[in-house]
C-alpha cells in the first residue's frame, strides 16, 4: 500500500528562525493520522509545504505520491483543506463561501451540504462578518466535508467549536471514515480528539518528529498510573526499579510504574492485600507532558498543558 503522505527530513527556515528542522511524517492511505504538537512546533508550516504554498529548504515531501510544489494544482483536486484560523470574506454569506470553494474543487454534493449545515446548526444566509470564530470554522468544515476528496487535511479543525459541536464533528468524521477510502491528516493540540479519532499519531516539537506510532505503541513506552486500597502497608514498593512517585495516604497508595516494572509492583501490592484497584493507561496528555516538559518538571507542566488547551 502506498503512503498518502510521506515526508522525510523536511527543513524550512524563515530568516534565522528554523520552523522545520528535519521533520518526518508518514500517513498511510486510508488511515486517520493525528499530528500533535504545541503551538509553534511546525504543524502548520508542514501542512503549508504539503499544500505547495511554501517551498521547503530541504528534505523530501510527497503527497499522494507526487511533489506538492510542482504538482500543486492536480493534487488539490484530490484533497480538501480546513485551515486552523479560518478567515472569510466579510461580505459573502457562509453559503456563498461553501459554494465558491466547492465550485473551485469541481462541485459538491448538495444533499450532503444541506445535511451538514443542519447538523452543524449553521445559517448559510448570514454574512461572514456576523459569524463567530466557531461559525467560520463550521463553514470551512462543511465546505471540506461535502466534497468528495480522497485526502482531508484538517489543521486544528475544532478550535472555536463548543463541546457539542466538537461531538458533531467527531461523529461526522467517523461516518466519513466508515466509507474506508479516505485518508485524514488531523493536526491538533486537543489530545482527546486525536485519541478518539486517530489510528496513528506523530508528535512533533521544535520542527522535529519526536515520536510516531499507533496509540498502543506509544502507551507501551510510558508509565501506567496505579491507585490501590490496601489492607497493610506496601513494603518495599518505593524501592522497586521502574516505580515512581509513590504516595501513601492511610490505606491508599498511588504510584506510576514503567511497563516492565508492573509485574513486580503488582506482586508487592498483592502481598499487602488488595481491597480496591484502579489502573489507567496514560492519557495523551501524559505522553505530551513527557515530550514537552523538558524545561519544567511534570508537576508544573500539568497546569501549563491544561492552560494550553
Amino acid at each position: 500500500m502506498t503512503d498518502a503522505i510521506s515526508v522525510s527530513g523536511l527543513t524550512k527556515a524563515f530568516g534565522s528562525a528554523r520552523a522545520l528542522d528535519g521533520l518526518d511524517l508518514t500517513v498511510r492511505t486510508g488511515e486517520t493520522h493525528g499530528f500533535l504538537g504545541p503551538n509553534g512546533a511546525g504543524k502548520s508550516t508542514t501542512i503549508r509545504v504539503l499544500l505547495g504554498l511554501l517551498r521547503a529548504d530541504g528534505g523530501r515531501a510527497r503527497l499522494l505520491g507526487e511533489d506538492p510544489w510542482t504538482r500543486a494544482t492536480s493534487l488539490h483536486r484530490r484533497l480538501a483543506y480546513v485551515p486552523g484560523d479560518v478567515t472569510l470574506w466579510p461580505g459573502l454569506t457562509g453559503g456563498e463561501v461553501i459554494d465558491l470553494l466547492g465550485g473551485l474543487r469541481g462541485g459538491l454534493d448538495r444533499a450532503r451540504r444541506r445535511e451538514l449545515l443542519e447538523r452543524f446548526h449553521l445559517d448559510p444566509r448570514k454574512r461572514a462578518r456576523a459569524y463567530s470564530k466557531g461559525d467560520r470554522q463550521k463553514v470551512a468544515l462543511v465546505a471540506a466535508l461535502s466534497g468528495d476528496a480522497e485526502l482531508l487535511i484538517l489543521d486544528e479543525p475544532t478550535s472555536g467549536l463548543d463541546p457539542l459541536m466538537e461531538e458533531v464533528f467527531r461523529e461526522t468524521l467517523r461516518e466519513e471514515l466508515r466509507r474506508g477510502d479516505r485518508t485524514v491528516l488531523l493536526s491538533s493540540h486537543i489530545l482527546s480528539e486525536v485519541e478518539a479519532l486517530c489510528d496513528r499519531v506523530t508528535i512533533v516539537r521544535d520542527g522535529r518528529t519526536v515520536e510516531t506510532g499507533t496509540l498502543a505503541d506509544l502507551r507501551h513506552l510510558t508509565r501506567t498510573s496505579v491507585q490501590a486500597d490496601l489492607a497493610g502497608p506496601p513494603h518495599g514498593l518505593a524501592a522497586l526499579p521502574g516505580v515512581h512517585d509513590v504516595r501513601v495516604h492511610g490505606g491508599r497508595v498511588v504510584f506510576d510504574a514503567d511497563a516492565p516494572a508492573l509485574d513486580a509492583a503488582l506482586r508487592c501490592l498483592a502481598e499487602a492485600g488488595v481491597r480496591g484497584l484502579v489502573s489507567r493507561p496514560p492519557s495523551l496528555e501524559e505522553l505530551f507532558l513527557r515530550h514537552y516538559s523538558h524545561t519544567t518538571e511534570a508537576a508544573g507542566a500539568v497546569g501549563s498543558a491544561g492552560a494550553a488547551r
Partner: protein
Amino acid sequence: MSALAGTRTLAGLALRRERAVAPWWIALNMSMALLLIGYIQRVMPTDAVKAAYTAVISRNTFFQALGGGFVEPRLDVLATWRSGGFLYVASAFAAVMCVVRHTRAEEDAGRAELLRAAGTGRRAPLTAALLVAAGTSLLGGLLTALALVAAGLEPVGSAAYGAAITAVGWVFAGVAAVAVQLSRTARTATTIGLFTLGVAYVMRYIGDATRQYWLKALSPIGWGHLVRPYQDERWWLLGLSAGVAAALCALAYALLDRRDLGAGMVPERLGPASAPGPRGPVGTAWRLHRGLLARWAAGVAVLAIATAGAGTLAGQLAAMPGIAQGLLRNMGGPTGGALDVYQRYMTLIFAHVIALYPVLMVRRLRSEETSGRAETLLATPLTRLRWAGGHLALAGLGSAALLAVAGVVHGVLYGLLVGDLAADPPRVLAGMLSHVPAVWSVGAAGVLAYGLLPRASVAVSWAVWILTAVLGQLAGPLYGMWAGTPLEPFHYVPDVFGDGSFDAGPYLLLFALTAALVGGGLLALRRRDLG
C-alpha cells in the same frame, strides 16, 4: 451600579485611541481654512479681481450649489465660502466615525462585554464616545477659529465659523448615537450615519442649486452655511444645532435603556444561502471585489457630474484667475481652445484618480494573502497564476470600465450643459480611454513589487502612484512644469483633443511596459513562499 460608572475611564481609553485619529481631523480643518485664505490672497489679490470672480460665481448655478450660499467679494467671506462646503461635511464625518468606533464597533469586537462585566455602567460607553466626539468637534472648531484670527481675520466672524463647524459635528455625533442603537453591527451604524449625512448634504446642495432654500433650512449641513460667518452671524442657528444634538442624544439614551448588549432595533439583512454554478478565477475575483468596483463606479460618476457641471465655467476660463490661464497658455497648443484644454485637463485628473484603483487591487491581493483567505482558495485546484490573474483581469478591466463611466457621464452631461451632444460624448470617451494603457502601467508596477517584494508591495505601489502625480502634468503646473516630466507614463499619452492625428506608438510602448511588469511580477509570485 450607576449607569454612568466608569465613564471617566472609558473616555480616557477612547482618548488614548483617538490620539492617532483626532489630531489629523483637527489639522485638516485648520489647514484647509488657512490654505484657502492663502489661495484667495494669491490668485485674487485685488478687490477688482475678487469682484470679477464673485460676479462669475454668482451667475453660475453649479458653483452656487457647491459652495453653498452667497458670496461677497471679501477675503474672509470668499475663503470660508470655499472651505466651508468641505469642512462642515468633514466635521460631521469625523463625528459619526468617532461615535461608531467607540460604541458599536466595541460591542462587535466583544470588548464592550469585557468592560461592562468589569463594572462600567450601561450608559458609560455611549457617554464616553459622545464626550470624545463632541470634544474633537469643539477643538476642531476652536482651533480653526484661532488660526483664522491669527491669520488676520476678524475675531467675531472667525468665532462664528468655528462654532458652525463644531455645531455640525455635534448634530452628527447625535445622529451616530441613535444609529448605533438601531443597527446590529458597526458597519450598518456607519452606513446609517453616513447616509443621513449624504441626505443632509444633497438637501443643502439642491436647496442652493434650485434656490428652494427651505430644503437647505431643513438640513443640519445647511444650518452650518446659514450661520453666515463674516456676514450677519446668525448665532441662534448654533442654538438650534445644539438643541437638535441634545434631543438626538436623549433619544439614543432612551433606546439604549431598552436594548440588550449587542442587540439592535434593525435586523441584519440575510444574504443568499447558496451560489451554485462553476466559477473561474475571474468570476471568483468579481464576486469578491465587485463591491469595491461598484463603489468606485458610483464615486467616479459623482465626480464626473461635478466636472461636467464645472464645465459650465470653462467658456469663461480665459477670464478666470490663477492656474487656468497658465493651463490655457501651455496646454492649448496651436489649435486648442479653452474648452479643449478643460477637457484635456479633466481626463488627466480622472486618469490619475482611476489609476488608484489598480493600486488598491494590488493592496487587496496582498491582504488576501496575509489574511489567509488566499491560502483557503489556493488549497483548491486554483493555481497561483489563475488566482492572481483573476484579480488582475478585474483590476485591468475595472479601471478601463471606470474610465468609460467617467467618459460617458462627463461627456453626455457636458454635451447637454455646454457643448454639442453629438460631438462631445465620443470625443470625451475617447480621451478617457486613451489613458487606459498608462493607468495599467501604474498598476503593473505594483504587481511587480507584489511578486518580488510582497511585504513592501503596498508601499511601493502607493509610491509609484504618488511619484506619477508629482512628476506629471497634474502637479507639474503647481511649480511651473506644465508638461510634467518624461519619467511618468501619462506623459506619453497623446492628446486626442488636439489635432486629431493618431499615433499607435506610445500605446504600444505602454502596453509592452505593462506586460513586462505584470509578467515579471507573476513569475516571481510563482516561485516565492506564500503567506
